[in-house]
């Protein structure tokens, strides 16, 4: 057992936005300080992946499939290979080993060999002295395809394949099926006074990180090094070793400073594997930078999701049962889709106390660019559906939609029906704050203007890794000597500021200024393992690991200070560069004299008991959950269907505000990206080709499109988070999308059960109402899916439900 942390149980003031007031007793934690890597970013000195160059670097260009589904009959690369300046040409035959983001889904080949499954799938790679030469050479490659009938939609994927399934060994084109039942759902519906069903659709979208993916590989002295804008260097390290058949000891992956991730750079990507192979073959540095269109093909973005939800409730609003079905369009590959599938069902019970819950999910393969993890991974879609469904249920019950939610809220220190362990929980407080700040209850009512409210939960890091293991999720090394303090950690700063968080916690523990702490991260050759930047895990997991390491050094230094001063260690004050009577440097030298080089390691693994034990229980649980609530205020024009968002209030249970500057940035970014998905963004297809593969046509809000945002914080001081902190990278995204749709209903009285809400959908709903039909636009039905019988899981007993 770890001793209770010194901050446990402390609950400080929660004035909105005023971080400093909240951080009494801390030296750097809670202060509004700039990120440590900001200087390089504002001077242009930061070197992103495509900014790196080595003499003699070859440029790699990928020839991609023009067909959504086809068999490769023959590939003739002779003319390309013979082109002056071309150094190497690779085909699928050169990279036969399959890989994938998660251990159970190894269905990717860096270059297609037998068949292509989506337009844009890489088929041949050319390395040449420069990009122009390589690109010209790709035009000389002849690929003979036998075209197969493509699968373009979820509905089509559920039918018997016209030609052949997209992947061998699957049942039709179904990738995954999941069916779980917690408690007695039929009984729950039987006792309900009101039962309601709805169908929703959430369109897919791309991350559109401003930086296009780029990777450079060098193979020298039997060592492969890859510099890449990856979010998960550790996983990529494993994949490269496997695919290239090199020992892990001979592979090093360095994650370069990131021009945006949002989940789009979590999966190992074809070009990363290809340049590595080419470097091994040619002995020269090889670089590949994707074009914007290629980024859209690499994709791994938000899954389009068709959803059906049925809820029973008593007259007083108590939910008696819920049944949630989802069909996900996975695109052509598994990616992290197995996890996505379970995520779509996992967090509904994390906000509402649902006594009986059935969840059935299906992920299908289609001939489209592969979907994968994007901010909120698998949870924005069901959150949108659930919140709008509850708005409608409230209407049926004649209840205020906020009151309906509140009477079903989960409580702190409880266990959900699907065995999630809830510890700190600020769902009531975020609701309170956002309602008060926005004046939601007394909002002005007029046609064309409305407000919407929604609430959500997210996890602080996946409780289980992408491959089965009992190893720590994050490891930190700390070196302290006369030369200074350096933290080593495999975590990747993808722009969210996680390096700064690591420096902050170490500085706090050692009583230093953040600038005194050097941070070395995301280099598998130098830094201990961290699983990567996804699922909002870095602050919580790497932050705890760093505290763990720093405490060990702190103890050593305190011992020295105590010895020198004759005082007891706990009587000494650590801070402002001093350990009691000694300066930090003196304490270090004294300790170094006695112990030799000072180094400490820290690690973090989620505690046991945060999940149930059933198939699928690994997805959803995290060591803690954050809660967010939003109110959106907007105008919706009944003549045009255009929507103008005026303001968004977003309240977030952050655990503890470690740095208001960083947190505010994540809050703003989440609101922005959620508004984008609610109103604009869609990765859609026409004639089986991407409809919008450019920054111009893939619409995303500009500076002039963004409303005012008001941030509200609730600090619940999580018992296990670093200083009580939780996450903010994804949680505040979630309530914004349903709040937009709810506000449109508030303004116009019609429901758009499908995002993005485009003007024509609003007009369709209004037209329907004018015809006397239901004022609604959205999907009509949920398709017939061959779900297996549910795995029945006994919910936690009332006795164990309190943890």
């Amino acid at each position: 057992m770890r001793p209770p942390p010194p901050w446990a149980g402390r609950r400080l003031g929660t004035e909105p936005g005023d971080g400093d007031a909240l951080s009494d007793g801390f030296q750097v934690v809670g202060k509004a300080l700039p990120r440590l890597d900001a200087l390089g970013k504002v001077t242009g000195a930061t070197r992103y992946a495509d900014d790196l160059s080595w003499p003699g670097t070859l440029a790699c260009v990928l020839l991609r499939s023009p067909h959504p589904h086809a068999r490769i009959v023959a590939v003739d690369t002779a003319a390309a290979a013979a082109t002056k300046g071309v150094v190497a040409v690779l085909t699928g035959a050169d990279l036969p080993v399959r890989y994938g983001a998660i251990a159970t889904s190894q269905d990717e080949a860096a270059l297609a060999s037998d068949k292509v499954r989506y337009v844009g799938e890489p088929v041949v790679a050319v390395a040449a002295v420069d990009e122009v030469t390589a690109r010209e050479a790709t035009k000389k490659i002849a690929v003979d395809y036998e075209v197969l009938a493509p699968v373009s939609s979820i509905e089509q994927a559920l039918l018997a394949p016209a030609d052949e399934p997209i992947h061998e060994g699957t049942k039709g084109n179904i990738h995954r099926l999941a069916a779980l039942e917690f408690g007695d759902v039929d009984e729950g519906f039987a006792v309900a006074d009101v039962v309601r069903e709805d169908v929703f659709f959430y369109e897919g979208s791309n991350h559109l990180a401003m930086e296009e993916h780029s990777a450079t590989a060098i193979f020298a002295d039997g060592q492969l090094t890859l510099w890449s804008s990856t979010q998960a260097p550790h996983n990529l390290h494993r994949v490269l070793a496997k695919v290239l058949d090199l020992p892990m000891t001979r592979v090093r992956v360095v994650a370069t400073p990131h021009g945006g991730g949002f989940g789009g750079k979590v999966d190992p990507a074809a070009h990363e594997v290809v340049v590595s192979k080419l470097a091994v073959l040619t002995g020269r540095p090889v670089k590949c930078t994707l074009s914007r269109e290629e980024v859209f093909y690499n994709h791994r973005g938000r899954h389009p999701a068709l959803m059906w939800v049925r809820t029973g409730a008593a007259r007083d609003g108590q939910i008696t049962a819920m049944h949630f079905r989802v069909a996900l369009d996975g695109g052509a590959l598994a990616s992290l889709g197995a996890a996505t599938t379970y995520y779509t069902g996992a967090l509904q019970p994390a906000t509402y106390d649902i006594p009986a819950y059935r969840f059935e999910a299906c992920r299908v393969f289609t001939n489209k660019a592969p979907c994968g993890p994007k901010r909120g991974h698998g949870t924005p879609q069901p959150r949108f559906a659930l919140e709008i469904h509850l708005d409608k249920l409230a209407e049926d019950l004649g209840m205020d939609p906020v009151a309906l939610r509140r009477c079903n809220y989960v409580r702190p220190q409880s266990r959900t029906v699907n065995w999630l362990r809830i510890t700190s929980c600020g769902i009531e407080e975020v609701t309170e704050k956002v309602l008060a700040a926005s004046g939601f209850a007394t909002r002005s009512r007029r046609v064309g203007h409305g407000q919407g409210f929604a609430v959500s939960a997210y996890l602080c890091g996946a409780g289980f890794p992408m491959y089965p293991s009992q190893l720590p999720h994050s490891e930190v090394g700390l070196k302290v000597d006369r030369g200074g303090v350096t933290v080593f950690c495999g975590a990747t700063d993808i722009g969210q500021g996680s390096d700064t968080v690591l420096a902050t916690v170490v500085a706090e523990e050692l009583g230093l200024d953040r600038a005194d702490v050097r941070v070395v991260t995301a280099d598998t050759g130098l830094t201990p393992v961290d699983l990567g930047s996804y699922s909002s895990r870095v602050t919580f997991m790497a932050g705890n690991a760093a505290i763990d390491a720093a405490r060990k050094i702190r103890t050593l230094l305190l011992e020295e200070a105590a010895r020198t001063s004759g005082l007891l260690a706990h009587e000494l004050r650590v801070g402002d560069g001093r350990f009691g009577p000694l300066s930090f440097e003196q304490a270090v030298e004294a300790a170094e004299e006695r112990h030799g080089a000072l180094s400490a390691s820290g690690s973090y693994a989620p505690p046991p008991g945060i999940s149930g034990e059933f198939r699928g229980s690994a997805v959803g649980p995290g060591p803690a959950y954050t809660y967010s609530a939003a109110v959106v205020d907007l105008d919706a024009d009944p003549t045009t269907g255009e929507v103008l968002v005026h303001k968004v209030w977003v309240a977030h249970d952050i655990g503890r505000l470690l740095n208001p500057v960083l947190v505010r940035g994540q809050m703003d970014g989440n609101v922005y990206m959620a508004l984008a998905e609610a109103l604009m963004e869609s990765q859609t297809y026409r004639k089986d080709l991407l409809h919008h593969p450019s920054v111009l046509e893939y619409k995303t809000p500009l500076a002039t499109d963004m409303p005012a945002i008001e941030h509200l914080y609730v600090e619940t001081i999580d018992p296990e988070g670093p200083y009580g902190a939780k996450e903010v990278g994804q949680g505040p995204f979630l309530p914004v999308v349903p709040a937009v749709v709810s506000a449109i209903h508030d303004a116009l009285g019609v429901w758009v059960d499908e995002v993005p809400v485009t003007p024509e959908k609003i007009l369709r709903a209004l037209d329907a109402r004018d015809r006397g039909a239901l004022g609604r636009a959205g999907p009509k039905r949920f398709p017939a899916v061959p779900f297996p019988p549910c795995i029945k899981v006994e919910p936690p007993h009332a006795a164990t439900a309190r943890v």
Partner: protein
Amino acid sequence: MVRLRLNGEDHETLARSGETLLEILRERLGLTGTKHGCEVGECGACTVLVDGAPRLSCLVLPEQLADAEVTTVEGLADGAVLHPLQTSFMRLGASQCGYCTSGMLLSAKALLDEHPDPSNAEIREALAGNVCRCTGYAAIVDAVADAAETLRDAP
């Protein structure tokens, strides 16, 4: 051979026919502070100043520049002294991943050079061609207003 007036210095470099200012800066001169996110004028990441006015370097040919003075993010600071925009961006968290930052800074500089006291709406208009995926533009707009204040207060 291409000649450029760049950040106050004269430069000469070889270039292939059809290389844009973006490629010349990044690949010929090693000035990688200028970024790219689309290469066809749609994202603003490659914004530089040409005679003080924002231009998209991915759509500029060196022949179009004649004797014009080009300013990139590397030329924004005065030696070791940062431009107030740079300090405001740092302090207020206007740069997250930082990939849009160079372009944002230069669009903002052109605005402040012309309008020392811009309104929130004017700042947003000036930045409308620069896409940012991280910040929701909020901290960026705040930072530009903050820098404007610093500049106005400067002697």
